[in-house]
């Protein structure tokens, strides 16, 4: 009596034509495992929600009494909520044909790119961010110059007009459940991180574009139109900046922590979905001798870029610039000469590690 007997084979093959479990089925099952016993997700006003990561980085950017800002009043690296005033019209320009072509080419590369990394419980995503940022010494009191020259009133964002380029290294260990930054260093010493706040927010609200998990990302639609609609729905409307600007800022954060856990299908779908965003353009740039494709969202005289590797379609960095000539950046000896108006430029690497502090 063996398993090759016809009766056993007949039982094994019933129902006929039943395929093997698919990767999607396995992913859905894992998502069910990890989402079990989690309270149902409630949608929150996304513009108000400050990602835990942004909060931790803002804290991390306080250096010796000085705060590093980028033009537009947003902390370097990650966007703070814009002011409540809607001071200018949103950029509603559709992506030009050359940008659509560039995004489709990136999507084709992404579809054949690396598979999603699996992050086992107890492991972390380690992101090392290496670049240059225009630093501004600013006090929280009077005398701070705002764009337009008036002093900053309490609660208003202070915007500098001159800065000096500084090397900026950030090492961040993310808990993949909510992409909560549990530790931040500047490459040498520990900086402020507040994982408890991030975890509390995640526990309260569950996974979302603001606090994604690998499992949640795996559930996103891979039809570009559906995906774009879902992303805009996550962002919501009614803030001071356009929906697509807010979405782009959020995606910069998502890519920074989560690119390596995206499936090739999702990476490709995201890139294709960007062809329908407003205010998007692209260009080829070279960073440290490496050719990259910069995809930019422009609004209010500023550009925010996500840098993609054309070979893999993966996001590998980001760049910000002032486009209206209102900011002057000094370049100290040893610093690279960035393009005019660039106030921030960095590339990153990501990998799954066994613990905090492991590189």
């Amino acid at each position, binding site marked *: 009596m063996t398993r090759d007997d016809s009766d056993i084979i007949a039982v094994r093959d019933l129902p006929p034509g039943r395929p093997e479990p698919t990767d999607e089925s396995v992913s859905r099952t*894992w998502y069910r495992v990890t989402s079990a016993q989690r309270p149902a997700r409630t949608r929150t006003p996304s513009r108000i929600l400050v990602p835990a990561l942004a909060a931790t980085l803002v804290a991390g950017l306080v250096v010796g009494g000085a705060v590093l800002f980028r033009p537009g009043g947003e902390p370097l690296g990650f966007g703070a909520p814009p002011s409540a005033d809607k001071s200018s019209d949103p950029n509603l320009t559709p992506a030009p044909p050359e940008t659509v072509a560039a995004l489709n080419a990136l999507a084709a590369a992404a579809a054949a790119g690396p598979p999603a990394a699996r992050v086992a419980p107890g492991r972390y995503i380690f992101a090392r961010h290496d670049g240059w940022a225009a630093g501004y010494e600013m006090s929280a009191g009077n005398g701070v110059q705002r764009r337009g020259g008036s002093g900053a009133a309490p609660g208003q964002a202070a915007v500098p007009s001159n800065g000096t380029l500084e090397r900026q290294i950030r090492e961040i260990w993310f808990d993949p459940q909510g992409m909560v930054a549990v530790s931040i260093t500047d490459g040498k010493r520990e900086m402020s991180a507040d994982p408890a706040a991030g975890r509390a927010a995640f526990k309260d609200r569950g996974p979302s574009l603001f606090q994604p998990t690998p499992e949640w990302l795996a559930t996103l639609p891979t039809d570009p139109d559906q995906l774009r609609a879902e992303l805009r729905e996550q962002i919501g409307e009614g803030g001071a900046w356009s929906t697509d600007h807010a979405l782009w800022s959020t995606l910069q954060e998502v890519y920074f922590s989560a690119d390596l856990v995206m499936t090739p299908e999702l990476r490709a779908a995201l890139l294709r979905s960007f062809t329908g965003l407003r205010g998007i353009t692209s260009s080829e740039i070279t960073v440290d001798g490496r050719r990259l494709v910069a995809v930019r969202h422009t609004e209010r005289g500023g550009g925010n870029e996500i840098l993609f590797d054309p070979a893999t379609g993966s996001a590998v960095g980001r760049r910000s610039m002032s486009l209206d000539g209102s900011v002057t950046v000094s370049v100290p000896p040893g610093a690279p000469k960035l393009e005019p108006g660039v106030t921030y430029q960095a590339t990153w690497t990501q990998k799954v590690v066994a613990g905090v502090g492991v590189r």
Partner: protein
Amino acid sequence: MTTPTSPVAIDPADLAGVFDRYARDLLRYCTRRVGEQVAEDVVAETFLVAYEQRDRYDASRGEVLPWLYGIATNLLRRHRRTEVRGLRLLARADGGPRAAEGPAQRATDRVDAERAVRRLSAVLARLPRRQRDVLMLYAVAELEYAEIASALGIPLGSVQSALHRARAKVRAALAEGDAR
């Protein structure tokens, strides 16, 4: 078993590691019994139960996979109606939409195969629960007798007798078609 287990020590507390190693096996087994959607729920719950009960896992009694199959089989009992309903639907099915007819022999073979599926499904739907569990663990999960006994918490002799009876009924149903 589809997945070799003996060369690697698996710690039940390593939920992701256990999932990585065994999820497909369990999904295959459960999907064949209750369909993909319910199977995903059952398998997810299987891993959660296993994790919660990891302290009860006794490595000296066998590998992790039979233990997981045991949990899954217990959970599948909640879905007995779904399983039996699916089998009865198969037993009544007419084979679905016809593809373009090929040569006569091929069409005849296909009709015979459809009849065999209907008879087999009808038999499985009528099997007592334990016989069906044992048969499916043997045929689909490809567990050994001792592993089935461990998974279901029943004596080895009960496994052998249940399997013998279930197979006798399956063979009779299949032979009924051959005799026509």
